[in-house]
């Protein structure tokens, strides 16, 4: 796999024409902490060799169960300065349900070890929306998370994706989805509790102590370009998006055969605009109206006058001359609002 990744990195050195400078690197998409430090080192070296790099952030996703202090220190020496730890929950039975290999105890230890290893930027993942009989478990989870104070929390609501085991269980009645109101209360609690602890909800699912926001992920929401390497990786060069095959073996085989073909998706300017609206609305800095005006030639507030007036009247959005932002109330309906703001034609 490492060979294939390196081959692909070299092959795509000119893929990002518009803005080739690499500012952030993110090892993600599963269990990159399984990679040997040697492999990580080679990958990073290859990037430095073939790309212009001015690194502001280098993140690695890690599972609590394969973190050791030694390994963490090695990562650090390689230049990795941010860890994202997939904790999900501090409850044993919830972890079991999610089929996680780690225990709640390991989670706590993993964070502790990371802090001890000197990682200043840490993030943990937490899941809510589990159909418990009451909110206690979620409140405990969140309290535990805030107690260890990672500085950054990504928190997602359990969603039932089609063609997954959970979808099947839901169909057969083995699993019952939590009610909308119940989930909404959990999200509400998440926002309040993190705010009280000094975290800012800088994106719908992301909370950070100011200064600890993920630079890499924020770039997705600003509409910047990105290059994905490895199986099932997505890239965007400012005009088009492409993705690689998702099957690991197929990926390795085709790279070995010198086949770097990708699934390409051509984006019309209107698609790029709508994607920008969709992602930027989720952030605390909001949708940059001037950017839309200069890049797409659209005066969004003028274009969607009555809708925006209505949303303002309902207290769902704030608009000033530069930005359109969601209010606390509006955040719950970010998708509805985004889709209503979509432009049909440019």
């Amino acid at each position: 796999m490492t060979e294939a990744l390196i081959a692909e990195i070299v092959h795509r050195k000119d893929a990002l024409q518009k803005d080739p400078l690499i500012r952030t690197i993110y090892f993600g998409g599963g269990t990159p902490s399984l990679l040997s430090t040697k492999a990580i080192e080679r990958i990073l070296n290859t990037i430095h060799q073939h790309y212009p790099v001015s690194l502001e952030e280098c993140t690695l996703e890690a599972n609590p169960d394969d973190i050791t202090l030694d390994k963490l220190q090695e990562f650090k020496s390689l230049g990795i300065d941010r860890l994202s730890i997939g904790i999900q929950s501090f409850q044993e039975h919830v972890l079991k349900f999610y089929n996680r290999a780690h225990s709640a105890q390991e989670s706590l230890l993993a964070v502790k070890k990371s802090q001890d290893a000197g990682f200043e930027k840490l993030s943990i993942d937490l899941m809510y929306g589990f159909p418990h009989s009451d909110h206690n478990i979620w409140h405990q989870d969140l309290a535990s998370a805030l107690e260890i104070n990672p500085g950054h929390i990504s928190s997602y609501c359990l969603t039932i994706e089609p063609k997954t085991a959970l979808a099947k269980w839901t169909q057969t009645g083995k699993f019952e989805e939590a009610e909308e109101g119940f989930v909404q209360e959990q999200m509400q609690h998440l926002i309040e509790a993190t705010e009280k602890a000094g975290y800012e909800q800088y994106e719908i699912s992301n909370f950070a102590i100011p200064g600890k926001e993920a630079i890499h992920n924020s770039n997705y929401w600003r509409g910047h370009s990105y290059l994905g390497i490895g199986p099932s990786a997505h890239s965007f060069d400012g005009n088009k998006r492409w993705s690689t095959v998702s099957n690991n073996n197929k990926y390795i085989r085709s790279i070995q055969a010198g086949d770097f073909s990708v699934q390409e998706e051509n984006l019309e300017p209107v698609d790029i605009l709508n994607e920008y609206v969709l992602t930027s609305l989720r952030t605390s800095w909001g949708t940059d109206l001037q950017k839309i005006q200069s890049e797409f030639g659209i005066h969004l507030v003028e274009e969607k006058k009555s809708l925006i007036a209505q949303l303002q009247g309902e207290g769902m959005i704030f608009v000033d001359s530069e930005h359109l932002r969601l209010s606390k109330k509006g955040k719950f309906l970010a998708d509805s609002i985004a889709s209503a703001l979509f432009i049909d034609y440019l």
Partner: protein
Amino acid sequence: MTMQKTRNFCIIAHIDHGKSTLADRLLQFTNTVSDREMQDQLLDNMDLERERGITIKSHAIQMKYNYKGEEYTLNLIDTPGHVDFSYEVSRSIAACEGALLIVDASQGIEAQTISNLYLAIGQDLEIIPVLNKIDLPGADPEVVADEVIDLIGCDREDIILASGKEGLGIEDILNAVVERIPAPKGEVDAPLQAMIFDSVYNPFRGVEVIFRIFNGTINKGDKIKFVNTGKEYDADEIGILGINQIPQQTLAAGNVGYLISGIKVAKEVKVGDTITHVKNPCQTAIKGFENVKPMVFAGIYPVDTTEFEELRASMEKLQLNDASLVWEPETSAALGFGFRCGFLGMLHMEIIQERLEREFDMTVITTVPSVQFRALMNNGEYKTINAPSDMPDPNLFKHIEEPFVKATIITAAEYVGPVIQLCMEKRGQIKNQVYLTSERVELSFDMPLAEIVFDFFDKLKTISRGYASLDYELIGAQASHMVRLDVMLNGEVVDALSAIVHRDKAYEWGKRLCEKLKELVPRQMFEIAIQAAIGTKIIARETVKALRKNVLAKCYGGDISRKRKLLEKQKKGKKRMRQVGNVEVPQEAFMAVLKLD
């Protein structure tokens, strides 16, 4: 051909009693059509008719029959079998000297059959009773024969036993037609007097007029005129109707035929009108002519607002061959541009809707059907009300009048209770109750037409498990306490959902409509108040709660495209909705009224 050897007759039958199959057998037996040419249910040649099992428009067909060595000309005039088309039935009957009364030997006589039978008896037609489907295991010819005898006072031997399916009794029927039905009377040399009883629209040749000559003779090329419309034409082509048209040089009194004279618009040809010569016209028109009036009114709107002009073109084409369809442009705040249409009845309305879909590929929204009310204004004048928006301010009129009908229902004795209850609920007053046999009862009610056109027949069928038939005729207008009920979404009146209803029923109506709308209007970003109001008074309210939360999954590099597409799809779905103020209303909601139970 002489008048002495001509017989003109029609068939009176209830839907499903086998009229079409029996007619097919007559045509086969007389070699009017070969077996090879035979299509099932030949006379019903519109798809729609065949599916509904109803002859919507009547036609005529001529047969030659050899009876005791002499050739007779038999004109079979087909009649529509639905109450929406009762005027056309009356004209078809007026064109005949005799009628076959076909009764299903397992079902007995139905209300519609009786009303058409009375029309025929009123026109002095010779009635030949036929019990059909005697081959069916459920047939009970003895009992049904008793019913027939009671009804028309014939002898038991006069009743012919037949089976269209098995071809039984066909010769008996043909012989009876020759023997019992009188030959037409009339004078060949008198001024031309022919009655139009049907027309067929042919896009290439213009309107084909179907007529019966009572007096005189028509020749190809004659200058003719229609008495009631006053329009003059050349008889470009005349002829008789076999399985195809057979052109003739001349047609004389007693016969039935068609006329082609380049008429482009169906409206010019009015059923019941009299054809005569421009020179030497007849002194009097044939009695019984009426201008057909629409009974049910509803708005028709294109689902896609940009298709208004297409809808107009389609409606114009439909009107070319359906003169009974009337319409004028109408504008709705909720639905945009559309048409206020007048129909003969609910069936006619459904047919128009289906034809728009099938023949013109137009999907339409039909608004609450309504009858024609009239308001007696304070100044003593009447104002016609065809739509809720026509309803004047309550301070400006003395009262509203609504059309009433005499409804005749025949049902099995065990359902009399529920039927009476239903009719009372529908503001009916029972007028008469007659036991036709110990098992079958005829009930008469005076009822508002508005209650009948709606869902009455479906309900009647349900409560009687299908064992009820209905017929009705207009008996005039009566004052009723009608009010306009409006529906508001977040305070905005949805004009397309307004309805004129009786005050005593307004609360129930408003409540149920609000409940139905609550089911149909999806939750949106804002709370939606659904209210029903009479004037400024709110009589019912439901609330569609605001969406509380989207499924806000994570959104990183690999998720963006999928997420955009998902939201685009949702947005596209919303595009099919209509905007009322800030509320998005799905198409089905406008039809909600039709689905109240």
